[in-house]
């Protein structure tokens, strides 16, 4: 059997295999060379592939994304690292005005196959500016694919798919799952880049989530079983585009839905999910769609972050408020 690999290790293997598979792939960013990145996701790659494939850039996020755009215009497939979620904001103009739009501006003549890797989210005791969940800044921008992984196996698959994508991909890595380990098979088949997956089948409620809170939802499903709720957990994987097919099929089956994410609820990703499901599944719903999210506050300091982050208890509290008439109808 394969040795267990952490998410950071799986992403490292994905980058190594992508560099091996296609000599147009280059990896650069802050500290990604000899240090191997602050989370060691690029560990060993500079030594293995040399400084023309993997290198440290000057410390400037707009510069990293902006030069990656030029490199992609000239035949390369850059994978760049933003060191932390909030440190990616200096690159926002390059991402929204150029990375997302070049294909559209040029009527498809210039494609930008670039992956921008962003470690995101909290739960690691990080000080300020190190824990933002910045996904909706990107999902609101047409032209970007935005994906996030929850497990080592899926992280490997998703990153390989992202590197192979002809579209620019914002690749969000949930920092608090970097050290989660499982054996991985380094397969790229299974769900495609744009597809969600049902990670826990259930009959009573669809819990829709992604990234760092997939594990939280699975924990809620384990505890919920003892309380008589059979939860289905959907890992969205692709936040943009949204996989309507998989999610609506699940919600039509269960009739109830809870959306879970770390980011603030107001204008958060869950608002879009709830609106879409209401539009598409209204007649299948037995209760309003509820959201379990971070509060509408700046990300809190380490000593207080556990109050902010959704946990299994808050998910199950939402489940209990889904207008049950008597017992859940399973069994």
């Amino acid at each position, binding site marked *: 059997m394969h040795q267990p690999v952490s998410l950071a290790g799986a992403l490292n293997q994905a980058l190594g295999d992508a560099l091996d598979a296609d000599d147009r792939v280059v990896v650069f960013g802050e500290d990604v060379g000899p240090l191997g990145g602050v989370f060691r996701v690029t560990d060993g790659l500079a030594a293995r592939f040399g400084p023309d494939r993997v290198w440290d850039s000057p410390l400037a996020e*707009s*510069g990293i994304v902006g*030069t990656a*755009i*030029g490199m992609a*215009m000239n035949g390369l497939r850059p994978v760049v690292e933003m060191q932390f979620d909030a440190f990616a904001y200096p690159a926002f103009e390059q991402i929204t005005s150029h990375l997302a739009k070049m294909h559209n501006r040029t*009527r498809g003549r210039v494609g930008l196959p670039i992956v921008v890797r962003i470690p995101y989210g909290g739960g690691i005791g990080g000080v300020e500016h190190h824990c933002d969940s910045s996904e909706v800044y990107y999902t609101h921008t047409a032209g970007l694919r935005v994906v996030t992984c929850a497990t080592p196996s899926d992280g490997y698959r998703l990153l390989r798919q992202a590197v192979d994508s*002809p579209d620019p991909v914002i690749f969000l890595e949930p920092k608090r799952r970097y050290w989660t380990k499982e054996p991985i098979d380094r397969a790229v088949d299974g769900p495609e880049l744009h597809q969600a997956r049902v990670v826990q089948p259930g009959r009573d409620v669809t819990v829709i989530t992604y990234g760092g809170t997939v594990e939280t939802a699975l924990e809620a499903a384990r505890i919920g079983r003892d309380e008589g709720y059979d939860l289905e957990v959907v890992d969205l994987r692709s936040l943009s585009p949204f996989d309507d097919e998989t999610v609506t099929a699940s919600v039509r089956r269960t009739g109830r839905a809870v959306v879970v994410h770390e980011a603030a609820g107001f204008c958060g990703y869950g608002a879009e999910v709830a609106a879409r499901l209401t539009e598409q599944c209204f*007649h299948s719903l037995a209760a309003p769609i509820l959201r379990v999210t971070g509060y509408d506050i700046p990300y809190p300091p380490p000593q207080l972050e556990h109050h902010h982050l959704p946990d299994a208890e808050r998910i199950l509290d939402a489940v209990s408020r889904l207008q049950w008439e008597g017992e859940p109808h399973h069994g």
Partner: protein
Amino acid sequence: MDAAGVATGDGTYELPDHDTLVALYRAMVVGRRFDAQVTALTRQGRLAVYPSSRGQEACQTGTALALRPQDWLFPTYRDCVAVVTRGVDPVDVLVSFRGDWHCGYDPYEHRVAPQCTPLATNTLHAVGVAHAARLRGEDAVAVVLLGDGATSEGDTHEALNFAAVWKAPVVFVVQNNGYAISVPLHRQTAAPSLAHKGIGYGIRSEQIDGNDAAAVYATVSSAIASAAAGGGPTLIEALTYRIEAHTNADDASRYRQDDEVAGWLERDPVRRLAVFLSSSGDFDATGFDAEAEGLAAGVRTRMGTDAPVSPSDLFEYVYARPTAALARQRADALDLPVGGRATMDGHEPGGRGIR
């Protein structure tokens, strides 16, 4: 050469040969006529907006003609004359200003990036293209045009720094036309010159007379040769002047005096090269005027009819392949039978399916 068309070279750069000077003059005559024609069409309402190149023809044609076929040009919105000089179809250049699409030409055909509207962002793209060329072993240099205002943007700083650290084959040509819309240079920077800005990054930097096409051509050519030979980037500050307002929507009388404009008209780049070439004897420019008129007439005719635009295009190029959601929105926008309803839980919104 000075404003009177008298050679003033100090020997730092060789005077471009006669044929090159004639080519520069031809490009300036054609470029100026193109610019005047587009300005006229804009007044007639045929274009949504147009930022004129008038007065900056030497910077733009000198740079464009210095490029080798394999080199890249990264223009801004004000560099239509440079783009036309590079060989892009003039009407394709005007697609974005007419509002038919964003970029109307294929950037790979002449190696001209889409004209950049956000200031200074294209400097980083140029560095990226140049660095990729070096990594791929390709003999190509990227030349990026920017203005005096753009040198205050953070991306210019990052691009100069990245280019210097990576020794990227890139040339930065700053057209210092004195104003960022209305803000004069002394409110833009306290640096002794914009060329000084390159020094802190370890970049070879020069300030030249940007209304001297021979100087622009010689300096940019030399910088391209240096970059191609592994010498890294060069920053060139070309001193010039924007004769027209920022765009047709701007009123330059609110921030500058007529006598200032008159002073710069005396330093006209086109006339001085004509004087210089005429003094050499062997020079006949009559064909260029006819060519310029022909181009202007062609632009008038082709811009006189509306280009066909399709709402279907709105959805075609967002991703390499339209997503399922965009396919539904396209059907909705075009009133096609396969609409968003297909996913509506088997019930039509507001129709008989509502309980």
